[in-house]
């Protein structure tokens, strides 16, 4: 858990959770996990879609009390 970065993008309409992830993943180390917190249910599909395209790893997605937690791992 100590090597996990959290992006609190709740209520982020602009730039939005995926843009926050795109910016943050540049700063992360290879192997590092990033957990995105989003109140936009669209994040549950658009983030994994992008992660797949750029060949990082989508570890999982979970919804807790209206907040989507999307976990990804930087692979390269």
């Amino acid at each position: 858990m100590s090597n996990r970065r959290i992006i609190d993008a709740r209520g982020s309409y602009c730039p939005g959770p995926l843009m926050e992830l795109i910016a943050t993943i540049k700063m992360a180390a290879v192997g590092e996990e990033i957990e995105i917190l989003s109140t936009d249910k669209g994040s549950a599909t658009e983030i994994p879609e992008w992660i797949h395209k750029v060949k990082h790893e989508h570890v999982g997605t979970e919804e807790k009390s209206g907040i989507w937690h999307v976990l990804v791992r930087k692979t390269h």
Partner: protein
Amino acid sequence: MKILIVGGGMGGTILANNLARRLSNELRSGKTRITLLSASERHMYQPGLLYLAVGRMMPDELYRDQAGLLEPGIDFQVDPVEEFRLDKNEVKTKGGKVHGYDVLAIATGSRPTPEEIPGLAENSEQFYTEETALKMFNRLRRFEGGKVVVAMGVPHKCPMAPLEITFMLYDYFKGRGLLDKVKLHYTYPIGRVHTLENVAKWAAPEMDRLGISYETLFNVKEVDGAKRVVRSEEGGETDYDLLISIPAHRGMEVIEKNGLGQRGWIPTHRTNLNMEGRSNVFVLGDTTNLPISKAGSTAHFEAETLGENIAAMVKLGAPVREYDGKVFCFIEAGLDRATYAMFDYQNPPQPKPPTKAIHWFKLAYNKLYWASARGLL
């Protein structure tokens, strides 16, 4: 109480003026002191660069003397900070002065970094500095037709700029009678043409109507200037004759050098705007790591919140309100129509169809900005 503001852009200037008015009695009596440290004696209206690039504003319209924008009683010094000594509640400037503080506000802003993407700086036109906006203006004047591609890095300042420059270029080429020789192609990093869903719902049909093609999930990886091709992280590529870029941004170097935040973004509490772990240090404007737009209006609304809170800390001993994530952005939909988006942490924007009236209001705001910086608007 000693209040120190670092950064003389929109956030720092509005905060200084807001505080000076709220604390006029305390300033007169000497109980409070407000010092503003800036890297420049001039203040730039940054949104004007978009207009400069298409010949709709002149360079001298972008600037005012910083000292003339400030309320009397503010101690203004052109002497940028080099060292933040937060454990000692002091900073050291380039000129060698040490300033102590009781409350520190950091508003140092951000900088475009096109050099981080191979080939982007040398093969594209940009409008985020006066120099590059003028270069873009001259390049556009000489351009006689071909494929114009708009591409961007993340994060970038002013999230409306990619759409605005695209629609403004359409009208610019239309005005020069070149539309039949120009093909506009817009790219965007996520899976729709703008990160704000309601803005994307308006902009995509507008592009369809105007014949502007677009490609989403396109994050620029590299530019091959010899082949005139832009390649994306997602594996796509597009050729170009003229490449217009909105570069990725970083926070200022001094923030990185002092270890205050990775890539120059300072970890900041989303409602009280405290730097994480520092109860007497506040952050505003582009400098925060908050998941909201890097835009002048964000700095403006944060400065108003902080002005009220820091003044309350002086008068009552505690802050009195929270920042709600409010942002307001005009969106130019060409050279004679505009709309706007207003939103906060709880409420998404509901942009209206563009009108000439909103465009005229935006042009008026380009002048009213100076009243805004003075904290009067």
